[in-house]
């Protein structure tokens, strides 16, 4: 495992970019959905919950196909995005990030929801007696107390994005430098009779990337755990 070839560098940095953008953009949305599912009661709740789980239940290629139908140039949203904002997702890294994000949503929502449901709500009313607005209570009490879940969501979402293949290739295909992430490069190599060494190299790169993410998250978890935990 010597230095990386320029091509490998491109795949690696693209994968990192796609995963980071996927997690960063979807995190706030996932938090909102998790909050809704944990705290609100509304008629269509079960449906929202089911919708969130959909990318987990359907085989990734189907999700990718649905994305193609919706976000392709001829898709409902795709055409609108392109007409109004001049944004194209198809065959672009942004499309790969969208696919990765969609596949990560169920995992992220669940982790965050678990943490929100574990919050001791009496602390929120205590904050209210101290004059804190709903926004301030959210930012200073609820959000920090839900942090373990948010962190778990980031780790799960990042790992899932790094590994996303089926939806991505179906939606945005394999365009070198644009949508050729690590799993797509790995898949291509697996199709070749003597691709196994390439598969191994790329797989090791994936593992190292996620190991890095895990180490960072463990450090953060430990930092959170210092406060807020019951001892004895």
């Amino acid at each position, binding site marked *: 495992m010597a230095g990386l070839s320029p091509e490998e560098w491109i795949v690696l940095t693209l994968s990192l970019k796609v995963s980071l953008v996927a997690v960063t953009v979807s995190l706030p949305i996932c938090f909102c959905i998790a909050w809704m599912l944990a705290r609100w009661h509304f008629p269509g709740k079960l449906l929202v919950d089911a919708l969130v789980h959909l990318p987990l239940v359907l085989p990734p290629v189907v999700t990718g196909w649905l994305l193609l139908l919706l976000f392709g140039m001829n898709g409902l949203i795709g055409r609108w995005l392109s007409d109004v904002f001049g944004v194209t997702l198809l065959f672009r890294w942004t499309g790969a990030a969208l696919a990765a994000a969609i596949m990560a949503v169920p995992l992220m929502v669940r982790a965050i929801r678990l943490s929100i449901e574990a919050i001791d709500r*009496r*602390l929120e*009313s*205590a*904050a*209210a*007696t*101290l*004059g*804190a*607005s*709903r926004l301030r209570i959210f930012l*200073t*009490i609820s959000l*920090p*107390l839900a*942090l373990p879940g948010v962190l778990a969501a980031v780790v799960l979402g990042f790992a899932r994005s790094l590994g996303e293949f089926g939806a991505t290739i179906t939606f945005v295909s394999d365009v070198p430098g644009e949508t050729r992430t690590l799993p797509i490069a790995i898949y291509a190599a697996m199709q070749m009779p003597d691709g196994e060494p390439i598969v191994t190299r790329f797989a090791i790169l994936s593992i190292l990337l996620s190991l890095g993410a895990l180490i960072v998250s463990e450090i953060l978890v430990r930092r*959170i755990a*210092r*406060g*807020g*935990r*019951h*001892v004895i």
Partner: protein
Amino acid sequence: MSFDIDVKQTRSGRPITLFCRTDSPLVALVGPSGVGKTSILNMVAGITSPDQGHIIVAGQTLFDSDTGIDLKTARRQVGYVFQDRRLFPHLRVRANLAYGRRAAMSMDMDDVLAFLGIGHLLDRWPHSLSGGEAQRVAIGRALLSGPRFLLLDEPLSSIDRDRKAGILDAIDQIRRRSPIPILYVTHDVAEAERLSALIVTMHEED
């Protein structure tokens, strides 16, 4: 008038009622365990709502089922020491004390730290405090939020005699300096008398 409270609420099937109109700035609420003292404080703080009635403190209407007034908790400017403390576990003692602190404050931080004896705890996490230490921090947090009135739910239950006296002295002084109304739940009638409070007793209803 300091307190004009007339409320009714049903809890676990039993009614909890209080009627109390007084000019006394300090009202001690006594009564057997489970009678509804904490429930009353929660209503005055706006954490729960009475089924009917009104709550007027120091001339301000906080709740009135007739006119539909129901001020949000955050806008009632209450200093509430909870029976179960409710310190924020993810914030150090210093940040807990600072949480509700208002600029236009009547109290000096150093004074409060001194009479509560919690100056040495500022950098500690709540989970590492002893029972009485946590209780004192909770008192400090409420006092430092610059409240218009105080709700104290057995605030001295885990505090030793000497310190208790010191804190009662301090509360006495607060009252003298800026006469904010105080609603005080206690099982210790001596405590109530010592503060020359109006004693309101709640009874079990059948």
